[in-house]
């Protein structure tokens, strides 16, 4: 799975592409956890290019939501792909997550999951 992290003033987002399953949990966590360094952070997770999620990935998203809310922030799932939307509906988890559609990426530094800058806008 490809993971792109974008950070800006008050805006943090992670874009995922590919399969999000048990094998991708560590990489996702490495990208997500540093974004919660400040209280009140809202992290947007863009799922437009995710082709598959399994129960481990859903459990990880729930864990991320709990961690964000415990520090007075939130996790927002953005641009749900059809496979993701279907799984959330089948599991009735769409009522648990905060979701958005059509959110655009904030301006800021783009880095890959290992922290190396990819481009700067």
């Amino acid at each position, binding site marked *: 799975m490809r993971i792109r992290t974008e950070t800006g003033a008050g805006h943090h987002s992670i874009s995922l592409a590919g399969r999000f399953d048990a094998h991708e949990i560590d990489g996702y966590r490495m990208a997500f956890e540093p974004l919660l360094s400040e209280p009140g952070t809202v992290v947007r997770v863009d799922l437009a290019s995710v082709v*598959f999620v*399994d129960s481990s990935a859903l459990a990880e998203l729930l864990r991320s939501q709990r961690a964000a809310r415990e520090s007075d922030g939130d996790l927002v799932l953005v641009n749900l792909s059809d496979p993701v939307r279907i799984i959330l509906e089948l599991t009735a988890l769409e009522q*648990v997550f905060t979701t958005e559609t059509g959110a655009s990426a904030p301006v800021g530094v783009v880095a890959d999951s290992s922290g190396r800058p990819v481009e700067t806008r």
Partner: protein
Amino acid sequence: MPTDVSSVDLDLALVTEALIASQDQLAALRALIGVPIDSLDDNTALESMLHEALELTDSHCAVLVRGDVVMEVGGGQQLFELRRLLTCGIGLSRTEPHPVELPVGSAVVASLGDGGSQGCLGFARRTDTRYRTGDLHLIDTVVAAINKLTSLTDLHRRGVRRAAIDHEHQLASTLAQAILPTAPPALDGVDVFARSIPASLAGGDFIVFEVLDGILWFAVGDVAGKGLPAAIVMTRAVSAARVAFHTHAEDQPAAALGAVGDELFDYLSGVGLFVTMAVGSYRPGSGVVHLANAGHSPVLSVADGRACVVPASMPPIGVVRAMRGRTQQIRLGPNDLLVIGSDGLAEQEDIHAVMYGYDRLLRRVEQRAHLTVNEFGDGLMNDVQDHAGDQPASDDRTLVVLGESRVAP
């Protein structure tokens, strides 16, 4: 010039003596290499090696220091001096075998392992006969042999520990899976197919059946995650479901599910997992299944040859505290079926990484709706396996099929 016979005889004697000594060393070297190392008792093997090394190096005593262990062979005053040097680390400025001074006699010391990480070793002679270059090479050979023995013993111990852990893992998996039913319940008026195949030794899928006062209670569920951790959580879910069956009326599966959720929420929240579960009850002949679904799929009602999804009325257990769903009434008349599976069916990939998929699952269910419960169940599980081919299971596969008993034609 006339040859001095006595001089030749003396030379011959010296050569013969040297040859014998060389042969003795060769025999000692063979004995050193042949010390058995197939035991975990490396101290015994080390002691045997030191004895052989004494003869090999023409020494009178040897000391090996490894951590708190001090091993000594031979005797004499030199033994005391050598032990003092090695335990105090005196004279170990170099790792390779090198001479050190003794008040009386001569000695050589060397380090074991990388940079002395495995200890140190020393040999001593009572006489002032110095250890020559050849002796140092032999001692280097002894050091190499001891290092090899240490490495092999360490590998052996790690292998044994790993085997013990694997055995415990296997045992824990077997115990976890033993909680699942080995056969579907037998109850007049209802036919049941039930099969659960974990993707590895153990998994998070589960099936629970109880027949109480002529009513069939059932639960089919899936713990998020895979392997032994999911299986351990699964055993808690199964126990909670059984208790809930006994404490709720047949038309209260939603309340039963809620009770399971209350029982497990803190536990699941603590480990960061959730459980999808469908709980239901069926009284044979009633024509109705009462069912509550907490985030589980696929749950399909098949009537008149058409399959309809029975949607979840609440999120999985462990996500929201005190969540309550609703009980749905599913028709189960003659030729109707209730099909409950796990996501391992639709998510199974073939060699081209193409999933079996929910659309194909629905089609196959409708195509097989006329079959008996067992024919239906066997056929669907085989179809998923045929799709997988030689690909390993993507996830645990579970299938439960309920149908009104059909009268034989």
